[in-house]
């Protein structure tokens, strides 16, 4: 018998078409808003028009009078049930509907439940709220002024607007490194506030059935089980009476991890009306109120020897969290995994201090397509490295080569204590340099200047921690960050796989089946993948931080192996030999020394239900909970070449090369899709995307005319390259890839534009590098900071 061709059955390495696309491209996806339940009501939320004000009164009488209005809820309604405030994922509290004050523009103030959404919207406009305006705080500098108004006067023991101070690393050793340094390079910058902005906004349908006591909530969530646990705690409902269903999601990017007031209000509305209540936020509501990303200021320094060797590094970050500290991140870490910065460089000493502040802006600080603040960490790192090389007068590529961790140094312990385990950093960099034509660049740049054009090249190299994470260190509100898979093989050899993750565009339905195909030889087409229903899926922490393949994907491999182990016993029974005499090849067991005598995995499946050996339980199903021994550490080298028009500041990408090493690629096409999408988001952040606020705290960027998403029209092409260094501890050698490009990409664009204009003395232009800012920098030869000056202690 010829062995199975793994690529033909859609196993590991097959660029199998995404099975979910069958329904998506036909418009047959089933999103929360597509679900219609009998008797369903509709809810709209009234938001605060101002950033900071005391609520003097709320008059809802005119809203109640509109025909078709069933319920009007205010903070008072919520407070009567102890639901005016809810806990955040970072051990803070957040207002559900405002009672005392509004603390950011767009905050939820009241809600109307009506027969249709038009009526609900009409009624919202009839609610009269009397506000007494307070001075708004729109950045950390204002927040720390001695006479700054106190934003969180609701909290005890909160005398100032400061949320936290946090530090990690070895201060003494770092100070010594700086004392010994030949050259010290300083970088200050701001990573502006951005928004994950999934195409589908957030929403829910709460359906409380008083007869059974069961609450079902269809919800746009990346982490249904965490939500179930939180709802059990907040709403004080028994966990087995709560079912969270996350249907098809139109993107998430970290935005759909937190719990939002709308969800909670819709649940109470359903309990009060005893009808299903649907709430779908509009795009502006999503942009103005839900989890943003970034908004961190950096003061960074690198200490170096003349020969280019980095001796030490220190970073101070000042982060703006908005009105409630609602970052979704592992509990131990106050500023996420910021200390993963510089993990790809061999640096003996490092020290990070961080402070977090409340402001009158929307809460969030979600991991927008990254592991908790890793995007900021890697951007800061690569901008600091760029400046350091320049300050030293050393070539950008050479400086990185000197300092990158070498292949023979793994496992490598970083100065902040992470353990990186594998990689070929120099190889990736060299492939990228070759592809971009680094050798000839200087000559090209000279030639272009003669034509009046400015060329620049920017490099970004980084490894990032993906796949949180091992249970020793990673938990969210006490729940360990393992994940799970459950595999049920039917009698005919077809199977259903469920995991605790939740796909939202990553393609789990396609790639998980490929892992099973690889482990069991069952064709991927014979495996259906289901996620997102807490009544059926095994408990898991959901999908974000590139953790699906590193954690849930590992669980898929492990559960497949358990199935194989049982099937082997059945095979021995069918072949009438002892288990020790059984050999495995893809999809088939055979008798050692007699390869012709064998049974397929499908034969074993049938026997599991019809002919099991004495004493064996029938059936062929199992589950696996996987607690990863470590994070995974993919590496990327991104190199970008731009041309700047000095007359307008407009810059064009001439070429972009991406070299990614994410270990073994399950489905290369899906991996490439992730990289392309991530680089597009990186380009967006570098070029056009940010949310800003005026002095009154008005959000500029709460619609798609101001918050710009790049389209296929302006997004440059990307040239992708591949290096494979398998992850040594992952069962199939895979590392995370969902976020590398978003994380490492922005610095490549920015370094390139800065490189094109740095001959004028410019060191930094804060993102986004819009043409007017680039032009301004060129014209004045000075830095452009989008931020107000931040105090240095």
């Amino acid at each position, binding site marked *: 018998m010829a062995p199975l061709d793994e690529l033909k059955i859609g196993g590991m390495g097959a660029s199998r078409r995404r099975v979910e696309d069958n329904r998506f491209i036909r418009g047959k996806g089933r999103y929360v808003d597509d679900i219609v339940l009998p008797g369903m009501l509709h809810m*709209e939320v009234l938001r605060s028009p101002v950033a900071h004000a005391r609520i003097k009164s709320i008059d809802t009488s005119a809203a109640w009078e509109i025909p078709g209005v069933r319920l009007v809820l205010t903070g008072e309604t919520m407070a009567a049930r102890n639901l005016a405030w809810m806990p955040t994922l970072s051990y803070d509290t957040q207002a559900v509907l405002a009672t005392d004050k509004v603390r950011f523009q767009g905050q939820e103030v009241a809600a109307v439940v009506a027969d249709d*959404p*038009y009526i609900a*919207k*009409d009624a919202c*406009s009839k609610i009269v709220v009397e506000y007494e305006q307070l001075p708004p705080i729109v950045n950390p500098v204002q927040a720390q002024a001695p006479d700054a108004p106190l934003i969180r006067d609701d909290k005890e023991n909160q005398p100032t607007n400061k949320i936290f101070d946090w530090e990690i690393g070895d201060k003494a050793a770092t100070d010594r490194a700086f004392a010994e340094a030949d050259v010290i390079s300083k970088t200050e910058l701001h990573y502006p506030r951005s928004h994950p902005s999934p195409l589908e906004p957030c929403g829910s349908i709460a359906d409380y059935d008083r007869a059974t006591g069961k609450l079902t909530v269809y919800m746009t969530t990346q982490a249904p089980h965490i939500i179930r646990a939180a709802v059990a705690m907040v709403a004080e409902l028994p966990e087995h009476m709560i079912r969270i269903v996350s249907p098809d999601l139109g993107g998430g990017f970290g935005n759909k991890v937190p719990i939002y007031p709308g969800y909670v209000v819709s649940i109470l509305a359903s309990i009060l009306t005893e009808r299903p209540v649907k709430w779908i936020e*509009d*795009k502006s509501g999503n942009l103005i109120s839900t989890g943003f990303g970034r908004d961190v200021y950096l003061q960074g320094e690198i200490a170096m020897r003349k020969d280019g060797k980095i001796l030490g590094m220190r970073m101070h970050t000042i982060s703006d969290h908005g009105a409630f500290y609602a970052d979704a991140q592992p509990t131990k870490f106050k500023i996420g995994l910021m200390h993963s910065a510089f993990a790809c460089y061999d640096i003996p000493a490092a020290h990070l201090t961080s402070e977090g502040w409340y402001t009158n802006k929307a809460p969030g600080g979600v991991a927008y397509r990254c592991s908790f603040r890793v995007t900021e960490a890697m951007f800061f790192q690569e901008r600091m490295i760029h400046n350091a090389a320049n300050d030293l007068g050393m070539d950008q590529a050479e400086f990185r080569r000197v300092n990158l961790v070498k292949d023979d140094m793994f496992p490598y312990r970083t100065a902040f204590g992470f353990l990186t385990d594998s990689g070929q950093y120099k190889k990736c960099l060299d492939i990228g340099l070759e592809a971009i034509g680094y050798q000839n660049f200087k000559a090209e740049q000279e030639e272009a200047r003669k034509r009046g054009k400015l060329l620049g090249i920017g490099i970004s190299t980084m490894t990032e921690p993906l796949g949180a994470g091992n249970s020793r260190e990673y938990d969210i509100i006490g729940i360990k960050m393992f994940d799970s898979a459950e595999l049920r093989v039917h009698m005919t050899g077809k199977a259903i796989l469920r995991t605790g993750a939740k796909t939202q565009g990553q393609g789990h339905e396609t790639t998980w089946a490929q892992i099973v195909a690889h482990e069991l030889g069952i064709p991927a087409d014979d495996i259906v993948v289901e996620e997102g229903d807490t009544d059926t899926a095994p408990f898991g922490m959901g999908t974000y931080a590139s953790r699906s393949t590193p954690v849930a994907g590992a669980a898929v491999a492990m559960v497949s192996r358990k199935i194989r182990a049982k099937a082997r016993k059945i095979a021995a029974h069918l072949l009438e030999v002892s288990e020790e005499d059984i050999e495995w090849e893809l999809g088939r067991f055979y008798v050692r020394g007699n390869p012709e005598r064998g049974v397929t995995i499908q034969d074993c499946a049938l026997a599991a239900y019809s002919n099991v050996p004495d004493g064996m339980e029938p059936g062929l199903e199992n589950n696996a909970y996987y607690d990863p021994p470590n994070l995974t550490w993919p590496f990327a080298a991104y190199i970008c070449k731009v041309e700047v028009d000095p*007359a*307008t500041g*407009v810059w064009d990408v001439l070429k972009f090369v991406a070299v990614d090493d994410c270990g073994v690629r399950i489905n290369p096409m899906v991996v490439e899709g992730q990289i392309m999408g991530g680089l597009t988001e990186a380009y967006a952040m570098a070029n*056009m995307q940010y949310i*800003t606020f005026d002095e009154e705290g008005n959000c*500029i960027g709460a619609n798609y*005319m*101001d918050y*710009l*998403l*790049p*389209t296929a*029209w*302006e997004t440059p092409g990307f040239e992708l390259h591949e290096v494979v260094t398998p992850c040594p501890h992952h069962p199939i050698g895979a590392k995370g890839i969902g976020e590398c490009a978003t994380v490492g990409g922005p610095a490549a664009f920015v370094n390139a534009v800065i490189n094109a204009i740095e001959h004028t003395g410019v060191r930094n232009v804060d993102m986004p590098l*819009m*043409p*007017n800012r680039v*032009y*301004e920098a060129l014209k004045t030869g000075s830095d452009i900071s989008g931020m107000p000056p931040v105090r240095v202690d």
Partner: protein
Amino acid sequence: MYPSRFAYDAPSSLEEAIAILDAGGGEAKILAGGQSLIPMLKLRFAAPERLVDINSLPGLDYHRVDPDGTLRIGALCRHEDLEFSDKLDAFPTLAQAAALVADPIVRTRGTFVGSVCHADPQGDWAATMIALDGSIVAQGPNGRREIPMSDFVLGPFVNALAYNEIAVEAVIPAAKGTARGGYLKLERRVGDFATASVAVALDMDGDTVRRAGCALAGVGGRTIDANDAISVLVGKTLTDENIAAAAQAVAAAAEPRTDHRGSADYKRHIVETFVSRILTNISRSEQKAA
């Protein structure tokens, strides 16, 4: 995004449409491509009692060039029709602008006339109309009248139409001499409104400028009429000095404000750069032709 309640009519003749508008007494609004009106309804910036959808009116989707060279654009001619038109050889300003209005999706529905009626200070077509000295033909209960562009846009989002009038056609006169022109727009992304844009239209007599028209979008509280400013070119040739003088004069006519798209100075600088680029392109192509 749920608009307020409104009534909806889709009349099948122009007369019927005008009658409905007339009966509406100012509370009815015309719906053409809907690319400006529908977002405003959804954001509840506008809440008309009635929409009069003119998309089923027959015979308005044309654009044609009369024997005397006049270009006529019907009320239902879409941006896209102009983008892919083969009739705009003598109207280079329009041909260049067509591909820069909004994005391809919006261009399939939005109309030229609707855009001019909308009178958005950042709108592209109104600027081209001013530079080309165009006019709008309006039809109401009392018949037709032609309104020159200089009288048509009264202010931001305000035009000279009476509540019971429909703009049925845009009229753009033929150039006297050879038509030259260009349109340049600085946008942050495809589909973005102009941070600054410049429409230039020249009637050339050999290498001498006979008439010069110019208008600007995005750099003032209304579309900026820079026809006077660029008239420094009239009777002159496109030398570097003359181009520089014209570019400076036009930039001086801009009324930009500093906002998150850039400083007033920057926008003014872009206007100057774009005028100079358009004129330099024209002069280079003249030289090539010669």
